[in-house]
């Protein structure tokens, strides 16, 4: 989308001129500013992730962002679009940043590169670049990795305080880039928790235990389950919630989508919990486990792929919340924010079409539709 800046007609000699329309006043805001705010608001969450899961999170972010910027410039050049202004809008950077936050900390580097590049090329530029994509690029990259490398993508490190062998900086770098730990310890050893078996996320743990026939109270007695959801994870979610609230206060995102995502989760999980609390998790656990807060405040609110009508935003958010709980509870994957977001992305054109606003002076829009 090349757009040149025009000088308004200023030919005092009265020759033909091109008029530029009002308004001539402009709020000082920009896409770049919005993107920077989004990145800034994730920082508390990033600190929590690093605190509990080590420096690998930072490595992921750096790999993903480098890949994104390189891919974006390359594609822009291939599409013969101006590189600098579009790179500067920061959207590729944000895509990579959010994708990296959703990846496990010791993921081999090439998977991160693959996921990010796929997100930029196929989820964004194939559709025509920023503003034209219908799927959330970060989530497309994430889902590609999840279904291609299910094992790597669901293997998280134990939170630092539960780790039998804490992972150092050198080990992290070494594992990400070569698959080998720097000292004699094997990767498997590093991934072990105090109780001896490889650690999964709390959601993963619960799912496995339930599948093995345990009841929920038994599953919840494991050391990783603590407080609102699990060790580390509750803090990760709390900090993302904090950052998200800051974005709402700064009016970078609306409050409707995050609230409706959480509401949607509550609406589906609460009846299930009351029906059988031995099998179904308490809604609060869902809210603070896995990628819930990251998804509700940072992923679902991606303006390009979300619904844009007032009613549509609610439907979009409620749908994401409901689908997430349904897949978490009845599906094969422990977490499902990514799937839920992509499924609702698909529904956006239809949602937008049927939730048109009622224009000033018009009767109800729904009646005008065929």
């Amino acid at each position, binding site marked *: 989308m090349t*757009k*040149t*800046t*025009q*000088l*308004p*007609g*200023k*030919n*005092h*000699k009265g*020759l033909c*001129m*091109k*008029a*530029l*329309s009002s308004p001539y006043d402009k709020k000082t805001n920009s896409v770049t500013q919005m993107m920077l705010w989004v990145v800034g608001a994730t920082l508390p969450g990033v600190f929590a992730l690093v605190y509990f899961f080590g420096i690998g999170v930072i490595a992921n972010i750096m790999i993903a962002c480098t890949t994104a910027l390189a891919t974006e410039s390359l594609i822009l050049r291939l599409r013969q679009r101006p590189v600098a202004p579009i790179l500067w809008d920061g959207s590729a950077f944000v895509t990579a940043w959010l994708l990296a936050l959703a990846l496990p900390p010791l993921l081999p580097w090439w998977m991160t590169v693959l996921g990010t590049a796929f997100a930029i090329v196929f989820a964004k530029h194939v559709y025509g670049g920023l503003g034209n994509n219908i799927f959330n690029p970060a989530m497309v990259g994430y889902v590609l990795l999840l279904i291609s490398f299910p094992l790597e993508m669901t293997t998280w490190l134990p939170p630092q305080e539960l780790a039998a062998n804490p992972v150092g900086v050198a080990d992290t770098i070494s594992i990400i880039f070569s698959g080998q730990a720097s000292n004699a310890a094997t990767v498997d050893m590093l991934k072990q928790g105090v109780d001896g078996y490889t650690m999964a996320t709390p959601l993963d743990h619960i799912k496995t235990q339930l599948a093995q026939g345990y009841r929920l109270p038994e599953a919840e007695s494991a050391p990783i389950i603590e407080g609102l959801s699990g060790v580390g994870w509750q803090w990760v979610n709390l900090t993302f919630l904090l950052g998200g609230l800051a974005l709402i206060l700064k009016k970078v995102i609306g409050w409707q989508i995050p609230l409706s995502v959480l509401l949607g989760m509550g609406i589906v999980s609460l009846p299930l919990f009351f029906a059988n609390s031995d099998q179904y998790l308490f809604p609060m656990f869902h809210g603070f486990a896995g990628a819930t807060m990251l998804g509700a405040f940072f992923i679902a609110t991606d303006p390009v792929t979300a619904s844009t009508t007032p009613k549509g935003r609610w439907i979009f958010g409620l749908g994401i919340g409901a689908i997430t709980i349904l897949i978490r509870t009845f599906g094969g994957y422990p977490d499902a924010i990514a799937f839920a977001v992509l499924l609702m992305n698909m529904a956006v054109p239809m949602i937008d079409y049927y939730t048109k606003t009622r224009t000033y002076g018009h009767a109800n829009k729904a009646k005008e539709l065929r």
Partner: protein
Amino acid sequence: MDLITAVIILAALGLVFGAILGFASIKFKVEGDPIVEQIDDILPQTQCGQCGYPGCKPYAEAIANGDEINKCPPGGEAGVKALAELLGREVIPLDEERGEEKPPSVAYIREDECIGCTKCIQACPVDAILGAPKLMHTVIIDECTGCDLCVEPCPVDCIDMIELPQTVASWKWQQPEQMIPVKQVEAN
């Protein structure tokens, strides 16, 4: 046995859905304009004959029968695009042999020179020229389509095609993307 059951079920399904579709096609039939009318609606009605047909309607009929959609210079690129969209055909550039897209203009008779031969009146496809034998003729500007057909027959060459000037009423805002960057010219 299984095979036969499957075939019967599928056949039955086919019949049921076929019946539903058949019913729907009658019940919800879209009464559209016949295609010639729709094509004629898009054509600019200049009646200039540059397409090689004696008027817009005959060309519309020819298009409906498969003729190319790029033979109408007054309709211009926009016209070709609209026709392509209506007929589901490829957008093609205007046929240059038929002439080029010109800005809207009208015929103007230099009245002092007119000898009153009525040839232009007979040539005008929309009866936009007023006059009688041996008396001066004049063009009704509002009715003139700018087709050029009166220029050729005039024995004294007193008809000019004049471009319609842009007025405040006919002026329109430009599509911002198509605006050519303008260099600022300072007033001295």
